[in-house]
């Protein structure tokens, strides 16, 4: 069966054990969570999770139903099928051998260099997965030493993607 990347947004009670319950629904089926971000919302008793996962459609549908069934879950949205905005923040440490070209790429993407060292520079980039993939592709020839990613966050919007 077809496997597709899904972005699932889960609103939950902000208390201990909730993350383990949610992660358990995926791990019990041998599903790897590709990306996960969790933080408190404007209501401190509520947390918002964004889960990126790849898997069999039917099983994911089942997981979403079971997420809804968890006592601590307030709301589940599968953002994949709807218009949604998606962002991720990454920090990339690149070999500083060709500073001029690196700076050009950074400017093109409207991102920033946030640390400059003798041997390497650190670049910060915010974007959707397409944009991030593109920039990483362009930076790769310089030699990427390290990447840190926050994982995706997603929200439903009224306007365009």
């Amino acid at each position, binding site marked *: 069966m077809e496997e597709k990347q899904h972005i699932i947004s889960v609103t939950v009670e902000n208390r*201990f*054990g909730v993350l383990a*319950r949610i992660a*358990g629904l995926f791990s019990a089926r041998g599903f790897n969570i590709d990306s996960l971000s969790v933080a408190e919302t404007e209501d401190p008793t509520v947390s918002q999770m964004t889960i990126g996962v790849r898997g069999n459609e039917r099983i994911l549908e089942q997981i979403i139903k*079971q997420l*809804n069934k968890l*006592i601590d*879950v307030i709301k589940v949205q599968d953002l994949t099928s709807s218009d949604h905005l998606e962002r991720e923040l990454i920090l990339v440490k690149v070999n500083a051998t060709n500073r001029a070209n690196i700076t050009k790429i950074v400017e093109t993407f409207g991102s920033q260099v946030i640390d400059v060292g003798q041997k390497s520079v650190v670049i910060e980039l915010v974007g959707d997965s397409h944009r991030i993939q593109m920039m990483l592709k362009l930076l790769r020839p310089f030699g990427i030493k390290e990447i840190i990613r926050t994982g995706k966050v997603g929200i439903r919007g009224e306007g365009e993607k």
Partner: protein
Amino acid sequence: MSGAEIVVEALKREKVEVIFGILGGVVLPLFDVLYKKELRFILTRHEQAAAHMADGYARATGKVGVCVATSGPGATNLVTGIATAYMDSIPLVAITGQVATPLIGNDAFQEADTTGITRPITKYNYLVKDVEDLARTIREAFYLASSGRPGPVLIDLPVDVQKGETKYHYPEEIKIRTYKPTLIGHPLQIEKATALIKKSKQPVIYAGGGVILSNASSQLRKLAEITNIPVTMTLLGLGGFPGEHPLSLGMLGMHGTRYANYAVMESDLIIAIGARFDDRVTGKIETFAPNAKVIHIDIDPSAISKNVRVDIPIVGDAKNILEELIKKVKPLSLEDWHQKIKEWKSKYPLTYQDDHKLRPQYVVEQICRLTKGEAIITTEVGQNQMWAAQFYRYNRARTFLSSGGLGTMGYGFPAAIGAQVGCPDKVVFDIAGDGSFQMNIQELTTAVINHIPVKIAILNNRCLGMVRQWQELFYGKRYSYTDLGGGPDFVKVANAFGAKGIGVSKKSEVKPAIEKAMDEKKLPVVIDFRIEPEENVFPMVPAGASLNQMIGGLA
């Protein structure tokens, strides 16, 4: 009031009559309060049995069962019992002791991450870190366990929280913003279902454990009688519709009746009520009931379209939804359909070779006859379970208690004790196998000491019969480790525990043995029926085959 006193007060408020369990170091404060004997406590000999007793009590009475254990090994011993209840949606509250809060996570003596271990096998669980939260937690636990799709809820209670002091206040109202089970079926869906029922020519009702959990058997009966639709039941649905009713097709599935399976496969409409299309019921899923539309009534939205595509889902409480359906449906003329079923029934009856030998089916039939079909029957798991399902006629809900989902050997005997505690006026039989009975045989002591007169009918074939059957049929008769080597002398074992023991090896001895057991009102009675060891359970749908490709059974 101390945390431990709050627990007891709260349990009294929840009208708990009995607790099953074993104590240990970190539940001493709680047991110091139980010492006042305001609540009945039954001390078991293994925590697993305590969980099964609470489960058997819950299934037989419809109330929430309660069990208690200490931390670490006490809690891990409960796990099988909790998982059993979870798979069959049985309302339980399990209270476990935990090491003192400052020690949690330090690998303290008898420490285990109980909430972590039980998370996937409970409907919900709590680690209470503050005595202020205790009363509310217990209130919520009972509410969660018994509402919506029921299930076990565990409360992990550190020893210092039991000792902590606070003002006792039991909340009347429960506020769980995320938990609002749908109880009333959507009127439009009920309308659509009514239209589909009206058009059907070959409909079947497929009733599961949900009918019993929602106490909807009389509504189910009305629906069937008004519409003339035949009813088949799952293992856990047995008793939800009278087994002797002319519209009953008995059990369906792997060891169901041929006529139930044929009817389901040829049906044009399946009305599933509180059932979940388990693999033991559907056989090969791709070929299951190819021409049937499916109406699925279930309180759990995640059960809908899980295994089988559903045309009309109705989420809600079965009893409410059936009440609504009864108001709308009209009698159907299904003469051709009933004619077909009648032919299957006469051509493929559920039967066995009733000769001079001591056969398990005969034993079950005799238990049914002598108890007038009114006993509570519990089972272990395996052949004994299937014979008990096939050859006893269950006419009332909550009279057949069996571990369906998890298939837990060792369930039946402690469950029988729990059922007998909840229903002291009933005759309770555990239809057991010699293998399963040995898994919780230690509870003979519990039954003797507490004067619980359950009857254990061991269908003793000196082997792990169901596995042996699979080895015979599918593994070239290579009987790898299924021979139990004769096992103990169960009559002597019973006597050693202070129970009564009766040995039966001839057909003529069956009836007097059952009668003698039924006359015993105080002590548990073990009847060791030394049956034909090679008897198999038939008919049978081999694993992976279509539901109508049954093997065996006398035609």
